[in-house]
């Protein structure tokens, strides 16, 4: 029998968290799901993959082109989607809200700042440098609302 959950500190906890998430399946609340995914060892690569096909910070994109609803995986994220799709959609959505706020000073979201801030906070430590200021703008916005 192979040991699926290895001994050790951080990686062990992340693996155990992944097992709980697998048991909960599609019923995991989105903020818990996001934090669990962001703790994975391949999280930075995953998030890079989600973000690289979006308009980029400093790219002088128009406000229309960074519409969050449109970029949240071909539309708003749905609770019944499988976990991977919900993570990808939510990350893209928050990234686009962050970009709109950072580049145009406009909050474009049908969801409250309090809902997006935990996702932005989870993304912050693992995104590339260019995305940090936009995500911090979301956190700052959540603090003043």
């Amino acid at each position, binding site marked *: *029998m192979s040991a*699926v*959950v290895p001994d050790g500190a*951080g990686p*062990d*906890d*992340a*693996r*155990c*968290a*992944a*097992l*709980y*998430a*697998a*048991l*909960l*399946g599609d*019923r*995991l*609340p989105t903020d*818990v799901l996001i*934090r*669990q995914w*962001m*703790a994975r060892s391949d999280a930075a690569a995953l998030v890079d993959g989600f973000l690289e096909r979006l308009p980029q910070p400093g790219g002088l994109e128009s406000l229309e082109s960074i519409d969050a609803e449109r970029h949240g995986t071909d539309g708003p994220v749905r609770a019944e989607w499988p976990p*991977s799709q919900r993570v990808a959609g939510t990350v893209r959505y928050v990234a686009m809200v962050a970009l709109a706020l950072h580049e145009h000073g406009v909050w474009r979201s049908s969801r409250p700042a309090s809902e997006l801030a935990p996702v932005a906070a989870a993304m912050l430590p693992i995104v590339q440098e260019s995305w940090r200021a936009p995500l911090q703008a979301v956190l700052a916005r959540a603090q003043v609302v």
Partner: protein
Amino acid sequence: MPSPISDSFPPSARSWLAVARDGSTEQRRELAGSLTAIYREPLVRYLHAFGARLDVEDVVQDLCARILDPAFLDGWHRSERPFRLWLRTAARFELMNRIRAERRRAGAADDALAELVESDNAQAAFDRAYAASLIRAASEAAQRALDAQGRAHEWTLFVEHSLNGKPYAECAPPLGIPVDAARHATARVRGLVLDALRGVLSAEQVAEADIERELVALLSHLQP
């Protein structure tokens, strides 16, 4: 007829008491081993957080040695508290007693009680380790059950699909599992792990209807 899991994992608080009172030596040894596997590490982390200059592993070892003492389990049952909280209290009192004994030997004043207030750090250390050891024990129980049924490859499928995110079309055929049957196989594995968790969670006073919420709570303890 018992489920495959209940042969290798503590199924309920009532059965713990039955084994403690009337079980064979082998049954008692297995149950004590299962409970120790879940609770030992959380208790060690918990006691470490008090910062006492004592061998906390030794304190926990002594506690685990009497984990199936019928009087100890009866006391827990009467308390109507979750087993982990009962154990935590017992561990803290044991640590306190040892500190007092140490101080008496050294001729110092007995202010151990004041020093052993349970901090948030101690609780968090316990909760984190408990969440990890519980899911680890349940996973191992599920793997044992699958191994015994000659279905170990279903665990691999579960890991590849549900943990590593691979689509069934990619991970099922190399394991000899038809793609059409893969969803049922992973559902079966999830059921086995949940069955294993239910035994401990029910002893911890978690109602069947609240298991999902409890799993979310356990997961939250493991977040960075």
